[in-house]
């Protein structure tokens, strides 16, 4: 405690940036209809990229201030706020890695909007920066109510991003996204209020040590999982995701897949396991079943898609099934794998949505049938696409492999049948991803509009290349992440054991 409040600065820097953009906009609103000129548009986007890059720098600073060998929460800031609620921030390896994923992806998303967002850019970057604050807040909050505030407030900017800058059915998708997520989180709110009443505190560290009676745990666990299952998403409450993904603008899809889904997995690791160990153990087979259904069923659904984004969206649901499998294996290898899978999926699915965005910006269609033969016109694009296709399939040497194999090994130790089912999903993922790749990239050019399509431009390079580098880096040297998340995994497991 004491010292420089690096976490608060990092969390609220984007919000401050958003206010700044808003003020500048208000000050210049009278003088020019700035929106229309491309120059003003770019200036706003550039400012937002700089703000989010500064946030990333802050998270890197937090990373260096963080002691990887110590257990427990670090860089803690705590101030009394309201009754049992306090403003308490802190990170462990789990949350810090997810924070870095968030701060890393946000500037890329803003940059990816360089050419694709041409209306209401000021509002766009404000929504994005506000969203970034809420996303970081979710991962650094160490107080139930503070966590809930960030968790739920993030719905508002995301709702606007999908609803204003989305595709044709954006209104439907935005409403579905909002209402699905809301009903889950409100049930969680009831459970949280109950916990605060029972334990007299909203502090994570107190609640982790507070032993709830087993029958109470069951109800609390169900309420929490209602929220996280929607967010992750798990079958059968995943149906909002394909709609939201398809309708959201490219950057919105990247953030949805890259960060928002991870809140579900984060929540399970932060609440379900350490705070309700008995209930978690009781529901283990149930969660395994849901995970396997998600992996197998949504992989098959993904195979039948004709829309590129929808295919990747369903593949996200399948990959999140591995996360559930790893988390509920309750062993070191499974949980490490689940965390790794979340980070890896954040990079890979984010990159895949960017890849789709590249051709969407040129052709304004996401129909797989409209493409074919891209390799002869866009060789560099085809190479990147190949890399991320393979990473999504789980090819050794990419980060996708590490996550899948570890969660499966973890799952195997807990329940053989679950790992066997999940392994099917690996095969299916090769089927649908390779089909997608073949139909879009190989073959003859059948669509005449494709004849003069241009390869990736500089901005797209800047967006996609870092993701590619990290995907390979983490595939070769996964210890970079395990070193960070090791102590928090051990801690979660010891809290579970202490509770049982």
């Amino acid at each position, binding site marked *: 405690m004491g010292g420089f409040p690096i976490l608060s600065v990092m969390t609220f820097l984007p919000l401050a940036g958003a206010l700044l953009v808003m003020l500048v906009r208000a000050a210049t*609103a009278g003088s020019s209809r700035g929106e229309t000129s491309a120059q003003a548009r770019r200036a706003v986007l550039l400012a937002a990229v700089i703000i989010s890059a500064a946030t990333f720098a802050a998270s890197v600073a937090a990373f260096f201030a963080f002691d990887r060998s110590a257990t427990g929460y670090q860089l803690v800031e705590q101030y*009394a*706020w*309201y*009754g049992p609620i306090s403003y308490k921030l802190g990170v462990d390896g789990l949350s810090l890695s997810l924070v870095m994923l968030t701060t890393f992806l946000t500037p890329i998303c803003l940059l990816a909007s360089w050419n694709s967002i041409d209306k*209401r850019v000021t*509002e766009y970057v404000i929504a994005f920066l506000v969203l970034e604050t809420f996303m970081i807040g979710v991962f650094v909050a160490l107080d139930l*109510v503070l966590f*809930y*505030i*960030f968790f*739920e*407030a993030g*719905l*508002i900017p995301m*709702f*606007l991003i999908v*609803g*204003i800058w989305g595709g044709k059915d*954006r*209104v439907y998708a*935005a*409403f579905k996204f*909002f*209402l699905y997520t*809301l*009903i889950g989180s*409100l*049930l969680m*709110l*009831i459970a949280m*209020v*109950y916990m*605060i*009443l029972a334990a007299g505190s909203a502090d994570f560290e107190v609640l982790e040590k507070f032993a709830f009676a087993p029958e109470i745990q069951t109800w609390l666990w169900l309420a929490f999982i209602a929220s996280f299952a929607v967010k992750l998403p798990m079958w059968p409450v995943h149906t909002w995701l394909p709609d939201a993904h398809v309708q959201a603008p490219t950057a919105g899809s990247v953030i949805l897949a890259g960060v928002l889904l991870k809140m579900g997995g984060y929540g399970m690791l932060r609440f379900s396991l350490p705070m309700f160990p008995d209930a978690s153990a009781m529901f283990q087979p149930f969660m395994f079943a849901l995970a396997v259904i998600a992996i197998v069923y949504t992989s098959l659904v993904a195979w039948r898609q004709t829309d590129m984004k929808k295919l990747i969206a369903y593949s996200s649901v399948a990959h999140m099934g591995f996360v559930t499998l790893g988390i509920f294996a309750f062993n070191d290898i499974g949980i490490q794998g689940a965390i790794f899978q979340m980070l890896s999926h954040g990079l890979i699915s984010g990159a895949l949505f960017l890849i789709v965005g590249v051709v969407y910006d040129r052709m304004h269609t996401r129909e797989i049938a409209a493409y074919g033969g891209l390799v002869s016109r866009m060789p560099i694009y085809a190479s990147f696409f190949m890399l991320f296709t393979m990473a999504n399939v789980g090819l050794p040497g990419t980060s996708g492999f590490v996550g899948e194999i570890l969660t499966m090994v973890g799952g195997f130790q807990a329940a053989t049948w679950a790992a066997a089912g999940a392994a099917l999903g690996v095969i299916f993922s090769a089927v649908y991803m390779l089909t997608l790749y073949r139909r879009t990239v190989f073959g003859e050019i059948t669509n005449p509009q494709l004849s003069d399509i241009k390869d990736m431009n500089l901005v797209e390079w800047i967006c996609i290349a870092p993701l590619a580098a990290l995907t390979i880096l983490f595939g070769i040297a996964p210890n970079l992440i395990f070193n960070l998340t090791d102590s928090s995994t051990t801690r979660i497991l010891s809290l579970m054991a202490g509770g049982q």
Partner: protein
Amino acid sequence: MLDITSILMTVAPELWLALAGLIGVLLGAIFGERFNSLSFKYGALSLFAAAALAAVHFGGGEAFGGLVRTNTFVNFAKVITFVLAGVALIISEGFLKRHETTRYEYSLLIIFASLGMGITLSAADLMTLYMGIETLSLSSYVLAAFHRDSARSSEAGLKYFVLGALASGMLLYGASLVYGFTGTTSFTGIAEAGVTTGALFGMVLMIVGLAFKISAAPMHVWTPDVYEGAPTPVVAFFASAPKMASTVVVANVLFTVFASAIDQWQIIVSIIAGLSMIIGSLGALVQTNIKRLLGYSSIANVGYALVAVAAGQEFGAAALLTFSTIYAVTSLGLFAAVLAMRRRGGMVEGISELGGLARNNPVLAVTLSVLIFSIAGLPPFGGFFGKFEVLRAGLGAGLVPLAILVVISSVISLGYYLKLIKIMWFDEPTERFERVDVSVMGTVLLCSVVAGAVFMVFISELGTGGWASFAAAGLAN
């Protein structure tokens, strides 16, 4: 022993309002038309002064041989309601001027309605209670029909009056039963006599009558019609100050008079709360008129407030004050925003008229969105803390089904709140609104800043552990 100073201090806000109202009548009689414009400032200042008087003697006291008793609980409500009534009066002037109905009677009616609220809140006797409620109601009927040339306004006033009279009759009938079975009209006397089966009948009838006044289901049917028909500034007043005063009065009566019968009224209030939440949020889903929509939304919100009431004094008193304060401020801001919906010299009330507001008038769109998200109970805005308090009270008292109903109703209500957001932000712009009065825009801004940010940052000052807790502690004495 007659301590005249103490008595005067106890009834000072009401005494002052009565005096201000009567002087206003005289001024109107003397200056006639010339007083019209000035009367709004006169009324608002009187109301603010009354709020100050209630704040000065916050601890409360007893007067008139136990007919009137105040404590921190009711004084808290008085301060808030008088201030809100004053603000509601200020934003009315521009509207009335444009409709050529700037008459000083308007201000005086608001003063008398506020006097009624003050008396009801101070009541420690069934007689005082009834007198206060009628003063409030009669002024409200006239206010609803203030646009006497408009058929809609007259209809609203008449409907309000006929149904309101019925409800007053029930309240009175219930009060007489309670008197008949306990032999006293004094609150403490009834509480000491204990609630017999006969008195229980009286209590139920009284709850029915009071439920009408706060527009709780199933006594809510007048609300959408009156909200739609009555002039908008009047609705802004109805939806804020009297709403808060009446819910606090319900709580005051149940907590002090019928404290021993909590097992009985907890069920009744829970049912009323549940019905109000569900009927209010389902009803609002299909509305296309923004005033009707907000009318239904207010029914749902009364349901949330009643959850705090049903939780009983120990858990619910502070939560009720917190929730009602945040709700009343937000509600006033919302109706002030409706006042800003003017086009080609007339008011427009269809929700589709807000189309593309984010492009035409970003400031109004942002502030209105904050108010909507706040009333929907979404974090990080103030409304969330109100709902949080209500949930905490409900769960603290073990009312789990009711807490789940709060959640269901919140999700349903997001259906129409989001529809408003969608219209403002997603849809294509329609014609711009006319220039908004400074007072109206200022109120929208102020309310959205207070509801959106101030309540969040200073929630520990307002809610549990803060002023609301301090005020609720006054009930225990």
